[in-house]
């Protein structure tokens, strides 16, 4: 995963640019041409992408924390190996995405700095705790499931390096979702207690997962520019609806209840209609007041600080090798 609609277009003042260049750029986008790193691009396009891709990268990295917490407590070696491989994939996703973001002229160190200082956002979903083993099932099934919905259209994003990174990421996501769903199947066919655990996890993750797609289209600012630039291909609500439609039958198969009394199938539109999302909760989590925001940042800062000697030692070793070679 895990981009969400933190991907609002950057609204800073548009610098004066050659209008004919801007028109030529838009014409390339309209012709479905991919933009590459050294091509001319409007400053707002560059800034919007740098922010979106780096926030996406931060989300992959922070996203390792809730699941990493369960690696040593997985119930079997099979589950442990799978979870370890999944978390390793997420780390790789972070790397692909930082590399794509760097092509826009900002260094990975600068992006790290933005995350560690608390200035950069990352997906709201990772500010919720994974309190039981069933949460690992729910995360894979729902969080990675929502991520897939978001990420598939990004494989056709107008910016080449981002699109290519997303193709790699999407190839790896399917295993994440399937391993999560398998955990949910096992629990929901298990003892009463296990089934209750699965239901409890679904109850807690469902609404935050719907929030992953970002604010409703009626209030989502600036997404028009991202659409025109073909960074975004579907609106937040369109993607959210696709996710709900895909997930309801899966929950039914599990014999679990989605925690939404208003959920109903609408014959006319062929969609599952869902109840009111608590957007105030979403705002609070994005503003830093979710259940785990402080923990997550503290864990990243600690890991970064404790890894400093490793980076220093590697750099010193490289320098020594270089001098020896002269």
């Amino acid at each position, binding site marked *: 995963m895990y981009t969400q609609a933190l991907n609002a277009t950057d609204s800073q003042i548009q610098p004066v640019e050659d209008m004919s260049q801007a028109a030529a750029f838009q014409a390339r986008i309209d012709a479905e041409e991919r933009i590459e790193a050294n091509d001319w691009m409007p400053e707002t396009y560059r800034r919007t992408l740098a922010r979106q891709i780096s926030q996406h990268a931060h989300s992959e990295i922070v996203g390792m924390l809730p699941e990493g917490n369960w690696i040593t407590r997985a119930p079997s070696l099979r589950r442990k190996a799978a979870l370890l491989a999944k978390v390793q994939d997420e780390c790789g996703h972070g790397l692909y995405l930082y590399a794509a973001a760097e092509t826009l002229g900002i260094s990975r160190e600068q992006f790290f700095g933005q995350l560690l200082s608390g200035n950069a956002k990352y997906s709201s979903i990772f500010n919720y705790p994974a309190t039981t083993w069933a949460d690992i099932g729910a995360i894979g099934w729902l969080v990675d499931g929502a991520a897939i919905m978001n990420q598939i259209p990004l494989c056709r994003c107008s910016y080449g390096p981002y699109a290519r990174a997303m193709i790699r990421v999407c190839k790896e996501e399917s295993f994440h979702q399937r391993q999560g769903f398998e955990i949910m199947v096992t629990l929901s066919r298990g003892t009463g207690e296990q089934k209750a655990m699965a239901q409890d996890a679904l109850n807690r993750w469902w609404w935050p997962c719907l929030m992953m797609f970002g604010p409703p289209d009626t209030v989502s600012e600036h997404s028009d520019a991202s659409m025109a630039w073909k960074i975004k291909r579907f609106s937040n609500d369109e993607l959210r609806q696709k996710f709900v439609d895909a997930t309801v039958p899966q929950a039914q198969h599990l014999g679990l209840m989605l925690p939404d009394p208003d959920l109903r199938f609408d014959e006319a539109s062929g969609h599952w209609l869902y109840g009111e999302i608590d957007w105030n909760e979403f705002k609070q989590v994005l503003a830093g007041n979710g259940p785990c925001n402080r923990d997550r940042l503290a864990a990243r800062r600690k890991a970064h600080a404790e890894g400093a000697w490793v980076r220093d030692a590697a750099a010193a070793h*490289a320098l020594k090798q270089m001098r020896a070679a002269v």
Partner: protein
Amino acid sequence: MMENKMMPLWEVFIRSRNGLAHKHVGSLHATDSKMAVQAARDVYTRRGEGLSIWVVPSAAIVASDPSDKAMMFEPAESKVYRHPTFYEVPDEIGHM
């Protein structure tokens, strides 16, 4: 402290099968070539994607300037006589 020194960027190329050329797959940061190869193995070949890895310091790559695109590649567009279809071969001859 070396904390401010940035880790160099490397471009990674993978040969997916013998008989195929190495293909660019992405980039990564590493302090030296050995670390770059190991990291490339970990990041880009976790599912049997390759049999051979090349890493090249990104700084060593010389690229053409995209704004010279028209001038650089125009000859390839205008010289139609470089293509076999430019030449007429009588129908009776068949495939040539």
